[in-house]
């Protein structure tokens, strides 16, 4: 009797705990957590504010990159040319594009100290596997800038595959460039263009 009672009580608790451990952090919760943790890290560290490259890079690579689906971002930026690329080319493109994004974001990060974020309520159905998380960045004296994250559900949790700033999609903006380069110098030409750019000294 008491055993049954224990079972009754504990089985659901164990099941519940297990499901919690596997439960995915909701996409809006994830975005908010990452944004706030990143801002806190910037505010807490003078060296990040002045752009210490090693620290900035560490912050981005450890905290943010794992939550981006860089392969899909690259595929979207390539558009129809993605399928024309061999698997090795796709891998190389993804690597170069990721490097470019990290460099870009590193450059931007140091400007974020005075930013505050606001988060719009998420509208999604439980079954959705793709959602847009809407936020806005405010800086003193300026109108807020809408910043939307396109998120997809993966076995490893929600991941971001596009960022849209004031209606300008990162991925789409690159698609125009990539398209033209592939047209004129092929997929290898694009890989070379990207890697040359990534090797160029960081502008300040």
């Amino acid at each position: 009797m008491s055993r049954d009672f224990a079972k009754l009580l504990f089985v659901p608790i164990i099941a519940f705990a297990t499901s919690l451990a596997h439960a995915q952090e909701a996409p809006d919760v994830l975005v908010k957590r990452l944004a706030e943790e990143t801002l806190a890290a910037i505010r807490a560290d003078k060296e990040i504010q002045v752009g210490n490259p090693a620290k900035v890079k560490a912050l981005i690579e450890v905290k943010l990159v794992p939550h981006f689906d860089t392969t899909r971002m690259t595929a979207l930026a390539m558009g129809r040319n993605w399928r024309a690329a061999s698997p090795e080319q796709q891998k190389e493109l993804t690597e170069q594009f990721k490097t470019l994004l990290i460099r870009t974001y590193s450059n931007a990060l140091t400007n974020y100290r005075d930013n505050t974020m606001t988060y719009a309520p998420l509208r999604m159905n439980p079954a959705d596997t793709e959602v847009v998380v809407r936020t806005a960045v405010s800086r003193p004296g300026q109108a807020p800038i809408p910043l939307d994250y396109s998120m997809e559900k993966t076995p490893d949790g929600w991941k971001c595959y596009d960022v849209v700033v004031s209606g300008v999609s990162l991925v789409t903006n690159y698609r125009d460039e990539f398209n033209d380069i592939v047209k004129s110098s092929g997929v290898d030409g694009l890989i070379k263009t990207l890697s040359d750019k990534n090797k160029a000294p960081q502008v300040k």
Partner: protein
Amino acid sequence: MNESALRSKMLCALLPLLAVVSLAGCAVGPTKEDPYEPFNRSMFSVHEAVDGAVMKPIAQGYVAIVPELIRTGVSNFFGNIDDLFTGINGLLQGNGYRAGDAFGRVLLNSSFGLGGIFDLASMMGITKDRNDFGITFGKWGFPQGPYLFIPGFGPTTVRDGTGWLVRLEIGPVGYIPDIPLRNSLYGLGYVDIRQQALATESVVDTAAIDKYRFIRNAYLRARRYQLYDGHPPPEDDDDSAPAPSAAAPAAAVPGAPPAASTPEPTPPK
């Protein structure tokens, strides 16, 4: 002032570019929105040269010498004039709600904010908005017209540029009778805009492969987004993208059938 604010907003978060020209071979044909591309590109080069030699160093010097508190006051002062025009355009677009917020900001900041030097309204939660004659003309149905890059001014279109001329014509600074003062204010306003763009600019320099095109495309998309109040209709784009990650492995197999075409990233709603 909205122009630069817009520019910095576009750039701010991610996108960037650099004078780069590793793209020598890149044959870029004029597009529908940019029929004068060759001309615009030469204007862009003029701008880069002159700006890099004169305006940018002035803006950098301004940031280095003038304390942040004062710079913020200057930005707020000109931002207060922007708010006035945001309100006027809200009215012209029949949007009393946006107009009311903007005029409320102007009243508050002009009085208790000491002529706009302090942005009290934002502290009280009346959020700053952007609006301008270019957007009003667009909502009234005027076509955008060709894209233009104007040295010393930046990216615009015939419609947006016309909006700016209207604004300069009726702007309050133009009514100041003391000509040296008036010109100083124009100069300070310019430096203020230019310094606001500095941070964004270095990001664009890093991000862009072809800086001219990067700025053009970002400008046109951001304006479109603004025109439709953040809900633009989907662009005509036959370039449908492959591959949510589920499809990626298939795409990685040479000769695999093309992945079923998948929808574009959800457009902003």
